[in-house]
């Protein structure tokens, strides 16, 4: 893992870091990747079904019935800029 790659991943996530932070992150990556490398050698690991949730449960979707409705004013209360009840952002498509 080199710093150029780390910067690429960070920028894809829409943020940047300082040069020192990239160096620190590189060290951490080296540690975690080496730990995961050991784990990949655990016997028959490929035969195990990955677990994504703690346990099986009878999850049920709620009825598709309108319940709480957020007022438009509330929904926009934290937005950066609001014009005519809509969130306003700089123009995306150029002239």
């Amino acid at each position, binding site marked *: 893992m080199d710093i150029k790659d780390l910067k690429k991943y960070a920028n894809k996530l829409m943020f*940047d870091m300082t040069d020192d*932070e990239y160096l620190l992150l590189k060290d951490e990556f080296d540690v975690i990747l080496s730990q995961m490398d050991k784990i990949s050698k655990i016997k028959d690991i490929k035969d195990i079904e990955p*677990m994504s949730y703690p346990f099986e449960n009878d999850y049920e979707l709620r009825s598709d019935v309108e*319940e709480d409705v957020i007022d438009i004013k509330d929904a926009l209360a*934290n937005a950066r800029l609001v014009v005519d009840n809509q*969130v306003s952002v700089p123009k995306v498509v150029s002239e």
Partner: protein
Amino acid sequence: MIKYNSISKLHDAINSNKVNARNLFNDSVEMAKKYQDEYNSFVTILGDNYCDSDKDTLLNGIPYALKDNVSTKGILTTASSNILADYVPIYNATVYEKLLKSGAQLVGKTVMDELAMGGTGTTGHTGIVRNPLDKSRMIGGSSSGSAAAVALGIVPFAIGSDTGDSIRKPAAYSGVVGYKPTYGRVSRYGIIPFASSLDHVGVLARNVEDVAIVMDIIKGHDDKDLTSLKDENINYVDVVNDAIAGRKLFYIKEMLEIKTDNENINKVIEMFKENILKFKKMGFEVVPESIDKDLLLSVGPCYTVISSAEATSNHANLTGILFGLKSNKDNIQDMMMETRTKGFSFLIKRRFVLGSYVLQRDNQEKLFRNACRIRRLLVDKLSDLFKVYDGLILPTSFNIAPKFSDKIDTANDEYLMLENHLDLANFGGFPSISIPMGYIDKMPIGLSITGRVREDYLLLNMASKIEKELGLGDMDV
């Protein structure tokens, strides 16, 4: 009156008119303000928040605190991150809604590690939280301020969240009780997430019975949370003192057999072994069980991989456009870039980069999916053991709270083996509690008890009996 009193005692005092609930609330607010500069428990202290209430519940009039990742309509909710430094939610989390309806009185929102990622109490955007027992030491995290507020006696209980150990470890480091229920037992609707398959909402209090009182109010099915469990017809307070004779506990012998020069670790192991004798005298059967050492060493790395992957996805919505830190750049790309660069600390960014990396197509199989495979191996192993045993006991941490100046190597085998086992309860959704079990150099050591999924009542019952036997509940800092 507020300081170091349990919920039951405060409830009795209010009901018999020995104490006025408004005065109790004001006492709590005054204490919160008094200790704020010294310990930094709160992001927000709500001095004017008292509401007259005559609800017929054990929490009516009882002051409490919420971790600052619990959404509170009209009240600042920052998750201790710069990116949400001015965020005011427009709706209530279910856990807050239930506490509002119970008549409990919210005193403040507590400092946490940023976005609940971290276990030190040093990464919140409003500063570090100090351990009430020794200000040169950490209190742990991420529910740092909630633990400090309870340990200082500002409130008899506080709500926290726990993705790996974030309720239980700070509880252990500060000498209070910390409870993470079964996955889905308490609704997570309105909680600013960290890692959805591992996140739990729980309670910090001064004794186990108080935890049961709070759980009876906040648990229950919630249509707004898909992962919420169905209701159960049981009041935890009613069974918390039931007999426990014949109950079976196990511990993981590989952890107790570790050879080390670290004096504190050896003292903790000795203390734990002495306590096992007490548990046996109480009527518990206590048996050592074995878990493969390589699996135990992999708990921490797998937790890091899984939680980082889920976190990076959960926080893609923090762009500053709809809510959060604003930018005045002249195009959306630059706006988001500036908001996220300034809004997240390095701690968060490094987790996001790792999370994104392990989810890349080329890496997913070897990194993310292998971590999920280890998760299954560990959970299946524990589930098998829980067919025989009622609980897993271990020291919550094998050391006292670290000093801020300590350099901790989290990658060596000793640390990996001893300090990550609390993650197991999050992997499998098992209910898990930390109660005080002794002191080393005047600093508390916690006992972790983990039980079968859905059997929160039994876990609290066993923990309450042990707490009474050890006589370390309701300790004054």
